[in-house]
């Protein structure tokens, strides 16, 4: 079963919920940190490294002796990553999304592909938690291919938790699609509510059931609760607005270990998550580029 922890707004507590939920579930849990631009799950788990792999996207290389500048590759490319200029073809690897289409349409078979590294996938273990995290190289812009590589390392059995990147753009979609349930974390502020609404609309389009965790409950007003009631959204958990929680977080401690009384809250969330039925409809997980090209 795959459960994604997501939120429209950043900084609402996705990682806090993901880590503490992982520690509250029974049995082995796989935790995928798909916030590859700023992975931070590892800060809260003392995990032993188990492996590290550089991943990349395939980018075209043109054999100038075979190329006749017909321009089929350039016409196909939606990202203008390959262009016929003067007497040659020029590739802009930083624009390439790695679809491989140019190599397929080239009538002269002049295009081959090489891997351009965009980041690393690191695996580690902490007790019952198997952590897989993606880390995008600084300056890289293509997030979904690395998220797909992280997800390609998820196992079939047990609970897989996904710490998704914030927002509702393509990177969030890449992290969330194909999951059985989405936990949407928000806070009781106008921004929290607005971005929760966007996230709910997004996961509804993806056809995935979702519930809401309200973090820092009591810090704002009741509009998030009113919205959830009006939309028929289950409130899975309310984490109280408590200075001790912020202090534990700032020290890199988990709430279930540091804050007395928090453990039962996450235990009930874990029980609720373990009862989630798998869904068979919806969009499948996208294949990693390595699988597509093999």
């Amino acid at each position, binding site marked *: 079963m795959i459960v994604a922890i997501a939120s429209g707004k950043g900084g609402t507590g996705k990682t806090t919920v993901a880590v503490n939920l992982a520690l509250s579930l029974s049995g082995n849990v796989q935790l995928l940190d798909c916030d590859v631009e700023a992975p931070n799950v590892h800060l809260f788990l003392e995990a032993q490294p188990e492996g590290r792999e550089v991943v990349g996207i395939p980018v075209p290389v043109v054999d100038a002796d075979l190329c006749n500048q017909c321009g089929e590759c350039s016409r196909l490319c939606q990202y*203008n*990553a390959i*262009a016929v200029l003067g007497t*040659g073809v*020029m590739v*802009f690897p930083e624009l390439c999304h790695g679809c491989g289409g140019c190599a397929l349409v080239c009538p002269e078979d002049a295009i081959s592909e090489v891997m351009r590294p965009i980041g690393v996938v690191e695996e580690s273990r902490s007790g019952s938690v198997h952590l897989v995290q993606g880390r995008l190289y600084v300056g890289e812009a293509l997030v979904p291919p690395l998220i797909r590589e992280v997800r390609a390392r998820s196992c079939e059995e047990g609970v897989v938790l996904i710490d998704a990147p914030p927002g509702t753009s393509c990177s969030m979609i890449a992290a969330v699609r194909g999951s059985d349930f989405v936990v949407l974390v928000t806070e009781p502020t106008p921004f929290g509510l607005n971005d929760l609404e966007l996230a709910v609309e997004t996961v509804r389009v993806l056809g995935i059931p979702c519930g809401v965790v309200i973090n820092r409950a009591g810090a704002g007003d009741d509009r998030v609760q009113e919205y959830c009631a009006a939309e028929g959204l289950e409130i899975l958990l309310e984490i109280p607005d408590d200075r001790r929680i912020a202090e534990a977080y700032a020290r890199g401690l988990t709430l279930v270990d540091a804050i007395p009384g928090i453990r039962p809250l996450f235990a009930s969330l874990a029980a609720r998550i373990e009862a989630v039925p798998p869904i068979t409809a919806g969009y499948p997980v996208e294949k990693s580029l390595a699988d597509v090209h093999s």
Partner: protein
Amino acid sequence: MKVVVTSMGEGVDSEVDPRFGRASKFVLVDTETSETTSADNSAGVDATHGAGVQAAETISRLGAECLITGHCGPKAFRALQAAGIEVYTGASGTVTEAIEQLRSGDLQRSGGPDVGGHWG
């Protein structure tokens, strides 16, 4: 020499468009015959990424040997260099005035990009 000027509209009386990749139109002027044609750049305007590369390919296909525009970013400049097109930036006024600026030596030939990516 065939010169392309980025422009807001068609014809030599149009204003120079300071953007290259997302310029509204390209006006092609043959400085020997004074023959002019205008070309559309909707492909560049609508491009999600790489508008400058797309525009360089478009004007290369038009047979341009020289480009006059306002600014030129890094990928566009690399593409134009590969296509063997001379780049002159900092142009203003109408297309006719820009051609005059080129003729009188008022425009400096660019040795590199003068703005970062995504400027326009």
